[in-house]
């Protein structure tokens, strides 16, 4: 995936040439008794096939931003301004904020799918994995025959390294890592162009976390979807992202190439964040982005 390597001089960055998602001036408020501006005039552009990291401490508004993109906010959270534009592969542009009803429903998951934090609770405990995977197809591909549907579900699971016969399992019969793999499989089901991952590995132990990250990196290079990866774990982002946005109190305080951010952090807050994590490999020079998954191997 040469396209996602740090851009060489002279070539325009991918997100400028071929953006898939353009967020302009987005503001989100919690209109409770006290109005809180959780997202404050945020502008972001996501290139096709790019991994954009979104870092920040708890409560900085990064999850709210993610839900705002896909219109999943609930009252009292309200989008008060800005725009979210989606540019599909086929060349259409969709104004996400203008979508209503069934249009919005069909847009979700088809174009932007999500993987949530804490795989434990993202799956409906009383339904089999198969039913929950098939749900996606029955909603978005109603013409698909039952047999084809089943076959697809099996393929999806195998693609994330879970045995096909796990389709018949209930969520509680799977380990945390397996559940998150199932969620990733589900997120890939419709071949979306953007995947928003909200702390997808936070609740998992380090070894499983590594495996999942490798899986995500591999799948992305195979399928070419763009990823918005949200986490408070900046070192992790440095490993997997092309660019990183650092968020604080609803604003993006710094946005730069992963390497640039790591070597020349501009904002004090970024420096604090970087300083607050011990280096993974013990020496500070261990920047891992360009060695990709091989490096993940070493760390394990």
């Amino acid at each position: 995936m040469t396209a996602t390597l740090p851009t060489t001089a002279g070539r325009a960055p991918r997100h400028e040439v071929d953006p898939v998602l353009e967020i302009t001036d987005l503001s989100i408020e919690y209109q409770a008794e006290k109005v809180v501006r959780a997202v404050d005039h945020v502008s972001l552009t996501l290139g096709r096939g790019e991994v954009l990291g979104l870092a920040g401490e708890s409560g900085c508004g990064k999850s709210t931003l993610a839900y705002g993109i896909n219109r999943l906010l609930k009252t009292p959270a309200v989008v008060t301004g800005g725009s979210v534009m989606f540019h599909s592969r086929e060349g259409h542009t969709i104004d996400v904020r203008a979508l209503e009803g069934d249009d919005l429903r069909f847009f979700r998951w088809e174009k932007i799918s999500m993987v949530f934090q804490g795989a434990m609770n993202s799956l409906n405990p009383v339904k089999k994995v198969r039913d929950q995977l098939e749900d996606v197809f029955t909603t978005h591909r109603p013409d698909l025959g039952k047999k084809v549907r089943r076959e697809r579900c099996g393929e999806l699971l195998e693609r994330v390294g879970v045995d096909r016969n796990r389709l018949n399992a209930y969520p509680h019969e799977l380990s945390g890592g397996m559940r998150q793999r199932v969620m990733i499989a589900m997120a890939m089901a419709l071949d979306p162009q953007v995947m928003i991952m909200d702390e997808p590995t936070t609740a998992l132990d380090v070894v499983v976390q590594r495996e999942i990250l490798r899986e995500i990196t591999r799948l992305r290079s195979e399928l070419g979807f763009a990823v918005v990866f949200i986490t408070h774990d900046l070192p992790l982002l440095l490993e997997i992202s092309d660019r990183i946005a650092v968020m604080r109190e609803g604003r993006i305080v710094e946005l730069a190439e992963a390497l640039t951010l790591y070597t020349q952090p501009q904002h004090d807050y970024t420096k604090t964040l970087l300083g607050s994590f011990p280096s993974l490999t013990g020496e500070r020079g261990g920047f891992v982005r360009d060695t990709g998954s091989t490096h993940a191997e070493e760390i394990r």
Partner: protein
Amino acid sequence: MRNLPPLTPKLLVGLTIVGAFVLWGIVGPFVVADPSGIDNIGLSAPSADHLLGTTQTGQDVLAQFAHATRGSLIIGLVVGVLTLLLSAFFGVVGAYVGGWVDEGFSLFSNVMLVIPGLPLVIIISSYVTDKSVWLVAGVLAITSWAGSARVLRGFTLSVRSRDYVLAARVAGERPWRVLLVEILPNLVPLLASQAVFGIIFAILGEAGLSFLGLGATGSFTWGTMLYYAQNSLALMRGAWWWFIPPGLSIALFGAALALINFSIDEIINPRLRDHTRAVTKRWQVTGPSSGTAVEGAAPAEKEATA
């Protein structure tokens, strides 16, 4: 008390009605005529002399009602307290001690739960011809604590495994101290709501029992009033003033207690709060997406745990 319920309209209405009944139960019997005094103006409609009319034998319904209010409230209170003690013992203590004690207590509560209470009470009361109020209260309490015990047990189990309780145990605090200081305060709202339920069930149960003629001997309660009214065919003769007040009182009093319980529930489960129609309107949720817009604080909670 650490968290008293906020004085919502619901709570205010509930407390006012309960307060009025309690006051009437205390003061009423002193200001009315003799409830048993017989007169030859049987079954007369409400008038200036008899504000709530008379019974078949000319007794003043208002006087009977005052005494009945006192009787029913006493039953409710006694049974409520007894139920609370029994359910707290079998639910909280069992869950706290754990092991075989818990297994045993839990099995016992569950068996008591599935054996229907009222038929049992009916059988027991019919064997005893001369019943005191205390006996009736005792029997009602014995047959109605199990449900509360189960609820309390579940909650105690979850509190028991919270970190600060474990910390207190590890720190070597004495078991009874951990139970009283660390666990019990958390249970207060739940205990209160269970006690309120206990009172409602007791008054309803006693009313049912008395309505069948199996209440305490010579007692005045809302149930016995209804029993005499039914036996004198008050309904068929259209003597509404006789059977409406006691029944309506049971309903009103029960409803008032239920209103108080709503407020307590909102302390136990804060998610139930703040979603009145007015508040929803203020957010101006319109359009089809509001159909799925349900839990206001969901993203905020997410963020908090992020």
